[in-house]
């Protein structure tokens, strides 16, 4: 739970920007509800999980000011995922301050928490959110520069982020904990820097390829180490050829765990390739392959026991109305300790 006076103030500001509307709307609200059924192979159906969730999104602008918020609510979670105030120096350049998503790779910058928008039900392991056991920081409080330079039909997108990184709480279920909006001073948080560049040959299309790099120093608690340094670099691409879309990313990671006297380091690579095909406007079969190299005996991966280095995914999406989809997905997961299958079924939507 992360409700606080600053958040209420910003939500009030959002409402203030939304309601005294001139001739045209200067704000938008979107709702992304989802009902997710999840079953792990060999478990009984009684152990299957049914999770309803709602992603609430709002954006507003007045003059050069921008405000954007995203709140995710489920039966055990209420998180302010994005809440940022922006100033547009030009139509293509906005500087944001507040809680932002780390522009690390493709998936998070494209889909955020709007599961309806992605073809698949699950996210690739490298794009898994840190509060769900993911390896990389996703939620940062800081300053983000987003800019697009257009030349002819070509577009060049740049993002630069500096802000507070997470804290790693090791133990039985090691997890990265991002700084809360209402209690930035709680826990130990250090600087996270990320840069991302994407090139789009057609500025009216989302076809793109790009690079990203990030460095973060993460304080560690409940472990023999006190500091983790993560250096991440990678490439990504998303390309649509008629009705066939390919999406992929490769992350190269160097990690160093230390406590002053002891120092353990390692490096590994992890990535995914997904293909989806839109047939008859409503059916989208998809497949995804995820693979990792060098993850065995990596000290950071040894702490993050939930990490799944290899996975094969097959699924089908059916857009049975223009704003509602049913998806069915099966994945084969190869974790270090076991191999297991997972079946997902979801209903998701975007309103209005």
């Amino acid at each position, binding site marked *: 739970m992360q409700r606080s006076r600053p958040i209420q103030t910003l939500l009030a500001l959002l409402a203030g920007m939304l309601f005294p509307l*001139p001739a045209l709307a200067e704000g938008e609200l*979107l709702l992304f509800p989802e009902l997710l059924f999840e079953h792990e192979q060999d478990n009984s159906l009684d152990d299957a999980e049914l999770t309803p969730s709602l992603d609430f999104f709002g*954006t507003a602008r007045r003059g050069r000011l921008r405000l954007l918020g995203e709140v995710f609510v489920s039966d055990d979670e209420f998180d302010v995922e994005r809440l940022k105030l922006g100033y547009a120096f030009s139509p293509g350049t906005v500087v944001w301050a507040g809680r932002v998503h780390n522009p690390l790779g493709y998936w998070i*910058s494209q889909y955020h928490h709007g599961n309806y*928008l992605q073809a698949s039900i699950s996210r690739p392991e490298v794009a898994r959110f840190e509060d769900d056991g993911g390896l990389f920081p996703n939620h940062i409080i800081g300053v983000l520069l987003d800019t697009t330079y257009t030349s002819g039909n070509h577009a060049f997108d740049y993002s630069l982020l500096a802000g507070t990184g997470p804290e790693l709480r090791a133990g039985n279920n090691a997890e990265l904990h991002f700084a809360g909006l209402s209690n930035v001073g709680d826990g130990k948080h250090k600087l996270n820097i990320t840069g991302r560049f994407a090139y789009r040959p057609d*500025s*009216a299309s989302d076809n793109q390829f790009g690079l990203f790099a990030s460095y973060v120093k993460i304080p560690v608690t409940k472990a023999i180490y006190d500091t983790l340094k993560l250096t991440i670099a990678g490439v990504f691409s998303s390309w649509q050829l008629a009705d066939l879309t390919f999406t992929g990313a490769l992350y190269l990671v160097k990690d160093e765990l230390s406590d002053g006297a002891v120092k353990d380091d390692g490096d590994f690579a992890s990535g995914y390739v997904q293909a989806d095909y839109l047939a008859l406007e409503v059916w989208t079969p998809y497949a995804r392959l995820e693979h990792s190299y060098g993850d065995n005996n990596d000290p950071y991966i040894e702490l993050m026991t939930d990490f799944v280095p290899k996975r094969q995914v097959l699924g089908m999406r059916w857009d049975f109305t223009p704003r509602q989809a049913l998806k069915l997905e099966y994945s084969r997961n190869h974790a270090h300790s076991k191999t297991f299958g997972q079946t997902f079924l979801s209903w998701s939507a975007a309103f209005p």
Partner: protein
Amino acid sequence: MIRRGLFFTGLLLMLIGMSLPADEPHEGTLVLVSVADLGDGQLTPNQLRRAFLGIPVLVNGENIRALRNTSDPLLNEIFLQKVVYMSEPRYKRQLVSRTFRTGQMHPPDFKVQDDLVHALKSVPGGVSVMWERDANKDPALHVIQVLWKGRPR
């Protein structure tokens, strides 16, 4: 003899008449209109598509703000095919996705053409698509360019 000639001429005309479709649509011209004077500036297909996807476009120093005209189903169908090059569901999904990612507003949708014209007159840099015959009725509207001309099928 004359009676027989008249009979065959009448029969021929009847057959020709039957072979024509009952509601042959009229030729139409779809234009891009604005109240703003964009000089001689025309929008490239790429700029047009960007504008109607809610992406910032600058033409002759003017920030273009696209307004969608859904007052006529035929006009809308031609707009989807000739301006944004995608089906309605795909276009709407792109708009939602873009707003969600960037916070940019998507083009507002006008189902009544009078409301659209009113908005065009009040929004700086506002552009929209319209049948040329409708655009010519209002002297405040400038035709920026012809987007499509033909007989709808």
